[in-house]
């Protein structure tokens, strides 16, 4: 069950990034009349500009998913680093980092990304927004896990052997955090995908005629009655991608709690 969620997540992500290779038509050029109903040469019909909806759906996830992966990794890395320092040293570094994290959590991340979109290109705004809104959550989780790990026997033993702190953090503490970090990465990805979809839909991301799930929602909302799949296909693609990532994160987190629960 758990393995199948991981496989499904990989398949969906792979399809989102490389699915464009399977596109039967050029996703960016007009190939038929606008708003054709599904059928014949066009599996999902055509959109407002007569472009093939199926080809655009296959190609439209690449930018959005790669940006979200990058944003998730950046947020996870920043949060993990901060959490390691805050949890390990405690004292003023902890107060400074946790205080900053609490402050950042006080501002909605969509607002952060929107204001940044004035000065930055959309992918950079998504990454920055996801880091501002996601890293603080990662920091909290990692900080608490490090505080617990610091009191365990194997870390105390390593401390007693006189290991240097960076070596100890990388060799003894980080491996224990792998599960937390993986589940967390999935959640950061979902949030980044939501941001990227929102900026794309608002016209601040990919520009026409490029294929992009968010932009497709914007282009085809008005004419949805003429060819519903033009609106439903990108919405479904976004939803499925977000759901597998969320299910993966949930599964990883639950497995961790099951494994950990019997221990004192």
């Amino acid at each position, binding site marked *: 069950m758990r393995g199948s969620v991981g496989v499904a997540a990989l398949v969906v992500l792979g399809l989102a990034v490389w699915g464009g290779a399977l596109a039967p038509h050029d996703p960016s050029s007009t190939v038929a009349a606008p708003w054709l109903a599904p059928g014949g040469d066009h599996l999902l019909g055509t959109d407002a500009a007569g472009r093939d909806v199926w080809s655009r759906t296959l190609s439209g996830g690449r930018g959005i998913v790669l940006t979200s992966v990058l944003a998730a990794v950046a947020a996870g890395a920043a949060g993990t680093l901060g959490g390691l320092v805050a949890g390990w040293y405690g004292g003023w570094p902890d107060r400074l980092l946790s205080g900053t994290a609490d402050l950042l959590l*006080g501002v909605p991340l969509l607002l952060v990304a929107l204001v940044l979109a*004035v*000065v930055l290109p959309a992918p950079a705004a998504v990454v920055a927004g996801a880091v501002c809104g996601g890293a603080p959550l990662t920091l909290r989780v990692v900080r608490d896990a490090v505080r617990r790990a610091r009191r365990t026997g194997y870390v105390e033993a390593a401390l007693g052997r006189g290991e240097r702190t960076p070596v100890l953090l990388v060799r003894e503490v980080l491996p224990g955090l792998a599960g937390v970090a993986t589940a967390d990465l999935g959640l950061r990805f979902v949030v980044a995908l939501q941001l990227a979809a929102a900026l794309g839909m608002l016209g601040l991301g990919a520009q026409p005629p490029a294929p992009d799930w968010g932009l497709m929602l914007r282009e085809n909302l008005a004419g949805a009655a003429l060819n519903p799949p033009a609106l439903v296909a990108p919405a479904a693609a976004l939803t499925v991608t977000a759901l597998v*990532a969320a299910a993966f994160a949930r599964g990883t987190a639950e497995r961790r709690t099951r494994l950990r629960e019997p221990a004192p």
Partner: protein
Amino acid sequence: MRTAPRRSRWTRALTSVVRACALLAAVSVAVFAVSDLLPSDAVAVRAGAGATAEQLDAMRAAAGLDAPAHERYARWLAGLVTGDAGTSLVNDRPVAVLVGARLPATLTLAGAALLVAVPLTAVLAWAAGAAPPRARSWTAGAVAGLAAVPQPAFVAGLVALFSVAWGVLPPVSLVRAGGSPLDEPTLLVLPSLALAVPIAAYGAGLLGGALADARALPHVRDAELRGVPRWRIATRHVAPFLLAPALRVLAVSAGALVAATAVVETMFGYQGLGELLVSAIATRDVPVVQAVALLASAVVVAGTAAADAAAALTEPVTA
């Protein structure tokens, strides 16, 4: 473990207010800095491409833009406090007038969305945190899934179902000029659902965990074993421990709702503050972006501080 010194409730409540003020100051600096990071400033945008460097310098001096950043920040802040948020670069109208014209529409929409979101959050949180075990794990998964769906995709789904497939609700919520959205309440149904459902799912995920924790507290278990009636356990033993998390979840949800109006209003063509913010971003109309972003942040920060302070005052003391 190092134990933090115990602080009184009033100290904690005061701390959250001070922290909110610090955060708002930081946000105002950040929002102001955006205009300085732009490659072309307000004058260059307004003068167009034909202006010479000398003309631009003269215009900057006239507009006070050659002053150092901290002076311009102080002037901007003083203007905001006195209700003068500058003029739009696009249509030269005062920003305060533009914002004032959109504010009632967004307040109406946000109010309608909260009316749906609050009871929905309560029901979903109960299902995810207190229903029988089998139903609980299923609903917790469903709630997490619902919260993961990107907002624009959710809106597209609502439009596809209610407007395209069933044709019962309008896909566009254009309010007549000079009219109020309450003149035609059907226009509010889809936008407020689009705002309320994802946020209720998100809030229920947070609150469901708090509910499960509260039900596992020793005194609740003890009351169950003593045969105290369920309603009495719920109201006397569990509810006091839920008040503080519920207030915090309400504040977080309301904040997310304010931000989400940008997406929902744009998709439904609803003329509110969120739509104003998005169109101002698209045209690089910095004074409007700054004013709306700061106003939204102020609402969110004030809401969070109020919830934190109230939570600190009402939280039961646990040993």
